[in-house]
């Protein structure tokens, strides 16, 4: 089975996530797109772990999963703060730092 199947699937998921990060206005949806990108990285790591027949790639994927969980926790806390202060979860309302 060609390893490229998995790599190109992962590249597709990554690009879908990149599109979501750029095109979404709702901050919860932006966080979901970031998760999509992190998940694409995990597929790559597992595919290379299978190719090298080494467990290191799987351990890296576990670390990525852990850090993704931490990231969502912090990210949602920030989203809640934005919502509390601006009464809206939309990211283009966050413009206080604009000159």
């Amino acid at each position, binding site marked *: *089975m*060609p*390893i*490229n*199947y*998995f*790599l*190109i*699937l992962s*590249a*597709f*998921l*990554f*690009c*879908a*996530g*990149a*599109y*979501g990060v*750029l*095109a*979404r*206005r*709702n901050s*919860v*949806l932006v*966080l*979901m*797109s970031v*998760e*999509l990108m992190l*998940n694409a990285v*995990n*597929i790559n790591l*597992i595919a290379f*772990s*299978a*190719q090298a*027949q*080494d*467990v*290191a790639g*799987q*351990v890296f*994927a*576990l*670390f990525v*999963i852990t*850090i993704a*969980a931490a990231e*969502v*926790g*912090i990210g*949602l*806390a*920030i*989203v*809640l703060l934005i*919502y509390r202060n601006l009464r809206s979860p939309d*990211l283009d309302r966050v413009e206080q730092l604009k000159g």
Partner: protein
Amino acid sequence: MWEQQVAFWVIAVAMAGAAIGVVRANNVVHAALFLIVVFAGSAAQYILLLAEFVAWVQVLIYIGAIIVLFLFGVMLTRAPMREERGKLDNSQRLASAVVALFLFGVLAVFLIDAFGGTELRFRDSMVEVGSAASVGDSIFRQFVIPFEVVSMLLLAALVGAVALARRD
């Protein structure tokens, strides 16, 4: 071998469709549900790649914990449950699509160039590599310092999330 290919394609098509659903859905809850399909699909791909332990961690952490967090986020930001055409996206949709397609094209060309001839060969010994025993062994021998650092990171994230979200 062909069973694996069929399984791969079925799961991959479902994942790709669901990924597009995540970034195109007009309803925040639908996007979260599409995200579940993507995560479950990747868990299935990990099983195809004989990484059993990571697959179950994926199910537990991503589908079990992260999706629940997202649904809480949807609830707490009072996202509208009905369809909202166009309100969830900003005005850069076309430019973003161009960027994403360009990125995918570049990645695909480079991947085919670099790994075009590489075949994955599955042996029985790889089932052992993906087992919980082997992964745990590797974490607690070779990667014990990163493991401790990650536990500190989780603690910091926990404290940080509480400090950010508390009301005073």
